[in-house]
């Protein structure tokens, strides 16, 4: 008998909050990106929890798709970051507020 789903949902909420906080506070683009991954993982955890609570495999299928989209997002995002850093080393998110080459 596993623990009730509420515990997992609360943990997912806290994890999402930490990710959102990091995204807002940190300036290093790579760390901001990792915080986005944290938030995605929190959502995945709540999806799996709901799959168990409602006894429906659909939640786990959605997590599968989230994983694929996250992989694609990381590839493109890191490509953009590499392109930015090639133009100006040590760029932070604040340095990029003018979208101009």
């Amino acid at each position: 008998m596993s623990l009730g789903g509420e515990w997992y949902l609360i943990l997912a909420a806290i994890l999402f909050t930490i990710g959102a906080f990091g995204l807002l506070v940190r300036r290093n683009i790579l760390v901001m990106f990792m915080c986005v991954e944290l938030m995605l993982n929190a959502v995945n955890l709540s999806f799996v929890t709901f799959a168990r609570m409602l006894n429906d495999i659909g939640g786990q299928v959605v997590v599968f798709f989230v994983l694929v989209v996250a992989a694609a997002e990381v590839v493109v995002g890191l490509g953009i970051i590499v392109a930015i850093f090639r133009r100006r080393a040590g760029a932070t998110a604040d340095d990029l507020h003018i979208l101009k080459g």
Partner: protein
Amino acid sequence: MLAFSVFGATPVDFLTFVIAAAIVLAGAFGVVFSRNPVHSALSLVMTLFGVAVLFVEQHADFLAAVQVIVYAGAIVVLFLFVIMLLGVDREENVDVEPLGPVQRWAGLLIPLVGLFLLLFLAGVRDWATGTPSARGAASGSAAGGAPNVDLLGRSLFTGFLLPFEVTAVLLVIAVVGAVVLARRPPRAEQAEMLAEQRALDEQLAKERDAELVAEHLEGRS
């Protein structure tokens, strides 16, 4: 079978949850508060492993394996590659970031408001209702003992076949986008450097040829 239970779960399940939750939260704080991006990436691995344990705990075995293989194996390695490639693995002073006090507190306040809203929703106990769709049950016992991979695969290749195919298109687009973004654009500066390098190479090759010819002639005479 143990006779007593903690919060409606066996002590083993409860302990597993508590330890995994501690690992997840410690990793998450590590990601946010590390000064060194490499430490952030490694903390991210810790969080991902904790989430994988929680997946196993909720009978999502396949997703736990994929979580470790894809996230910890591929995505974090990609992060580390980029960190090393760009050479941004030096320490960063988190305290002198140009965030005003108002911004810092707003950055703390807004997620906290969201957290309390989410916890309020989680506190409303019976909100996760709704009839399960006809895709099949999640846990093995309810579905006649079929393993999780079996159920997930069956659902993925029947009910969710079109989204699955669209996923393939998405991955191809991502690969093409990454190649386009990572390609070094031809610039005048680079062309100049290339031309210089080529001239140097040609000169060296000529000298080497001359030497070879001289050696050859020497050997003949």
